[in-house]
């Protein structure tokens, strides 16, 4: 049944490292001091380590790739190896102050279900994803006729972990439709050194990455 799903071993996660770390500072700023944080798809634990250092959070992580889990554990983090969606069913409502979905939503089979579950177990959910209507991506498709490969979408169509595409407008529409409270929106581009630069106007066209802070209504 899961045969069609991307197995984690096939993905070279090091390629998306600059993108995956680009919003760390923003995520930290949206995390209260001493919060209980659940990072879904925590990779090798870089973000959780920063959150512990800067915000003294009580950390929990979920990750499917065994090597990354072992790295997290040897770094002294509390992480379980599990499928993201399945890992949430054992958790009580409101068990966490913050649930992080950093660049993982589009790689899941049931993103809507995952978001709903994340909002059940967390009071605040921080979701980030690459914006597919960023102008560089649009022009690449229009003028070159090729699917984009760039710092925020660093994979070819055949080896990408993303099995979904989303845009800023799409996500806003979903939040409206589901009556989710958007506490904060944040949009960035990456400069030549992969540093994030905040985008304030027309994010659907001008931002490469989006970060939404959702809260339970």
């Amino acid at each position, binding site marked *: 049944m899961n045969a069609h799903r991307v197995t984690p071993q096939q993905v070279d996660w090091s390629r998306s490292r600059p993108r995956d770390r680009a919003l760390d500072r923003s995520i930290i700023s949206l995390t209260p001091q001493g919060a209980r944080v659940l990072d879904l798809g925590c990779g090798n634990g870089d973000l959780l380590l920063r959150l512990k250092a800067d915000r003294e959070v009580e950390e929990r992580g979920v990750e499917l790739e*065994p*090597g990354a889990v*072992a790295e997290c*554990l*040897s770094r*002294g*983090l509390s992480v*379980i190896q599990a499928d993201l969606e399945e890992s949430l069913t054992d958790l009580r409502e409101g068990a966490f102050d913050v649930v992080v979905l950093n660049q993982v939503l589009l790689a899941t089979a049931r993103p809507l279900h995952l978001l709903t579950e994340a909002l059940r177990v967390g009071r605040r959910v921080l979701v980030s994803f690459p914006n597919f209507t960023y102008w560089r991506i649009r022009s690449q498709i229009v003028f070159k006729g090729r699917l984009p490969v760039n710092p925020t979408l660093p994979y070819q169509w055949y080896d990408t972990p993303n099995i979904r595409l989303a845009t800023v407008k799409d996500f806003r529409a979903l939040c409206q439709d589901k009556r989710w409270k958007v506490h904060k929106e944040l949009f960035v581009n990456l400069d030549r050194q992969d540093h994030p630069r905040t985008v304030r106007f027309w994010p659907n066209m001008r931002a490469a990455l989006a970060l939404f802070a959702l809260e339970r209504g």
Partner: protein
Amino acid sequence: MTQIVKRPETLPEIRPPEVRRLEPVRTQTVTFEGPGETLHLESGQTLHPVTVAYETYGQLNDARDNAVLVCHALSGDAHAAGYYGLEKDEKPGWWDVLIGPGKPLDTDKYFVISSNFLGGCKGTTGPSSINPATGKPYGLDFPFYTVKDMVQVQRRLLKYLGVPRLLAVIGGSLGGMQVLQWAISFPEMVRGAIPIATTARLSPQAIAFNEVARQAIMSDPDWNGGDYSLDAQPERGLGLARMIGHITYLSEQAMLRKFSRRYINGQGRTFCLTKDFQVESYLHHQGSSFVRRFDANTYLYITRAMDYFDLEAAYGRLSTAFSGCRCPFLVASFTSDWLFPPEQSRELVQALRRVGLDVSYCNIESDQGHDAFLLPGHRMGDVVAGFLERLTRMAAS
């Protein structure tokens, strides 16, 4: 059609090669006797006196908060690390890969305790011990004991050693069952629990293998209803039991890698019924070396203790069993372990998380089957070291 068997990559150990060794170690014993020292067992029977064989490595610090209890598996003993320093080609303790200076259970930091469990045959009172009432080995007069009873005895040992609280309890397989029981029986004494390659209850398949092993022993005429002298063991039955055990501890991949279908003499078939294949020779070797160091009746009792361990039955629901636990858990399983499969570890993780406990879990890549927890060459050491450092930090804050 050719079947391609893909061997999972085993990750190299990150730690630099160990150069420092433990000082020569020795097994010590303590006997609990006198009024108030009678051991009341789950079976309703009692035992008195009880001797415990144990080893310790490293130093207990002034705050007495750096002790780590190591629980051994079915055929293990108190000798978990280092060398006695007696013979040149002597083998180190069974978990020497994990315990020692600079190793994951770093004896420069932690005070490591390992005891032969209750009912063992390596110095702790068990079926091969002399029954003070008769002057002969207990044999089948020895009372049945459980994992919970083993933990009670370890608790007494800690009291004797002046250890009020454990930084961690760690163990694999049957040792892992003791770890779970520790966290349940004495939650106030455990700061961290590390059950490895274990389960909250054996599968019927594992019970079946245990039963075949017991029948192998009991059908040996030398077993004589459990009444044999210790220098005339039921060797064939006990050897056979160990051979069965060893098949279940390895994996199909591990056997293929170690032995393939190789013949012993390299020539091929000899058309005889004695050992022809290398895998057969391996099993015979394991069987006969086991006979020299283990007691048949003890094997019967210990496998029964494993069969009877069932947290769900004992507490109603698995999560109820853990509802009184307070410590963080590190659960680890191995991908190719089919005797204590990863699925059983995931059940543990699920139950522990349901009661809101701090749980880490890692399914470690290995093709070595259940035995992987005793062997080097995978990430278990790093993972355990990271968890212990975290526990130390938590204890300090």
